[in-house]
């Protein structure tokens, strides 16, 4: 069955690429927003398969990457306190802060635990009433319902020793920010499939309309990404700018209504800083006042930490689609997943880390890659 599927996929992939070649009249720059999509594109060499002149640039949608260094330092400071059990998704443990990463802190004796779900923190808090249990609540809109449920249940059940350190980002303000940049190159977007599974895609419609960009909500599999690209290019070639849904087998225009409802009752929109990029207005969540007893920043009153990012790092320009990993002199030399200098190298879903993981740092230049890729594409 699997082989038949693979055969079918290859045939379909070839026909999508053929159609792209047929309709394309000029170069286009398209951004995939989500880090999971970036990982899939680089892993499967989707960008190599595309015809010359259709360029994919990699967006800001990796929550681990865009969590500011200051927040990682705050997490470190809270986790190092006696009487604290600090819980996190595994991805955050290896991200270096100014004073080392959480994994090292754990090996030095801090009680830091990797959890599968935010709900695990409730169990840990109930079992350890004498301790403060803090969850590192990072994520985009996809993860917000899970994090919201943790504080909602904690409040309902009166679990007073459970709190969250919030670092939540929102996609629509970030793509608006990219489109408003004078250096913007992005002409169309592959929208984030799982973010829209929660949020739906109504809020993308005014963006497509105002900035005259096609936005196609797209899944994560190679064929999804190829098909999403084709849908964007079709619109671009026809001079259209609408929101379309490539991922309709999973999501609809309104998203997940019960999840959105709980998120809105627990969080409110706030300004936030994105690592590598800076402050973007109304681009994140903070806890509503009613939930202040579960707000770790309030409980631990960690003072503002001054941080400095290496001047050489160009991750901000990469996240905005202005540059690519190869444009950075430190990529693959000074900066690797073991010694990351900035946002796009700290998580496997960051553009630099994905390029590195699949050996692209070993190739001299992106143009060489593309021409090598075209041959690969032809042979596929």
């Amino acid at each position, binding site marked *: 069955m699997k082989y038949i599927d693979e055969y079918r996929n290859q045939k379909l992939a070839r026909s999508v690429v053929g159609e792209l070649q047929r309709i394309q009249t000029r170069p286009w720059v398209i951004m995939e927003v989500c880090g999971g999509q970036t990982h899939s594109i680089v892993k499967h060499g989707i960008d190599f398969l595309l015809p010359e002149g259709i360029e994919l640039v990699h967006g800001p949608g990796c929550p681990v990457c865009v969590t500011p260094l200051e927040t990682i330092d705050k997490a470190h400071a809270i986790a190092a306190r006696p009487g604290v059990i600090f819980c996190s*998704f595994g991805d955050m443990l290896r991200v270096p802060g100014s004073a080392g990463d959480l994994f090292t802190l754990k090996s030095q004796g801090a009680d830091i635990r990797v959890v599968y779900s935010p709900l695990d923190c409730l169990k840990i808090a109930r079992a350890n009433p004498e301790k403060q249990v803090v969850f590192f609540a990072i994520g985009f809109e996809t993860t917000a319902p899970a994090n919201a449920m943790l504080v909602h249940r904690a409040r309902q059940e009166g679990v007073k020793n459970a709190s969250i350190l919030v670092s939540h980002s929102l996609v629509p303000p970030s793509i608006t920010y990219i489109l408003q940049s004078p250096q913007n190159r992005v002409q169309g977007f592959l929208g984030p499939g*799982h973010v829209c599974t929660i949020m739906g895609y109504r809020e993308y419609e005014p963006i497509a309309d105002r900035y005259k960009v096609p936005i196609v909500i797209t899944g994560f599999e190679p064929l999804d990404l190829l098909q999403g690209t084709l849908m964007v290019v079709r619109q671009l070639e026809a001079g259209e700018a609408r929101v379309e849904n490539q991922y309709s087998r999973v999501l609809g225009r309104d998203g997940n209504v019960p999840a959105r409802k709980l998120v809105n009752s627990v969080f409110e929109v706030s300004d936030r800083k994105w690592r590598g990029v800076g402050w973007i207005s109304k681009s994140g969540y903070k806890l509503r006042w009613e939930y202040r007893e579960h707000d770790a920043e309030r409980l631990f009153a960690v003072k503002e930490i001054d941080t400095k990012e290496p001047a050489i790092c160009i991750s901000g320009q990469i996240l905005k689609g202005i540059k690519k990993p190869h444009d950075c002199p430190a990529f693959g030399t000074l900066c690797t997943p073991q010694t990351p200098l900035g946002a796009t190298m700290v998580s496997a879903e960051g553009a630099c880390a994905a390029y590195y993981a699949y050996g692209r740092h070993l190739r001299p230049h992106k143009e060489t890659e593309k021409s090598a890729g075209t041959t690969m594409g032809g042979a596929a």
Partner: protein
Amino acid sequence: MCLAIPGKVLEEFEKGGLRMAKVQFGGIVREAALDYVPDAKVGDYVLVHVGFAISKVDAIEAERTYQLLEEMDQLTELKAPVVDEISARKPQ
């Protein structure tokens, strides 16, 4: 990080005020909350993100996506330790 993993709902139960399920992902069974997909029932396939079902999917779609995520080494979140009443008390 925003990936959601498809799995099959094996059984439903109520815990801590939430509608929970045992969900099978390939050879791994983990718990997931069904509160955000109220119409999901035993036998259905759901997309699960950090312990919460966020959408229903059909069986063929679920199988294909799971295989792909496995090939892409994107199932690490399922390998996080199980927290139960006993393990919750001690550091990992």
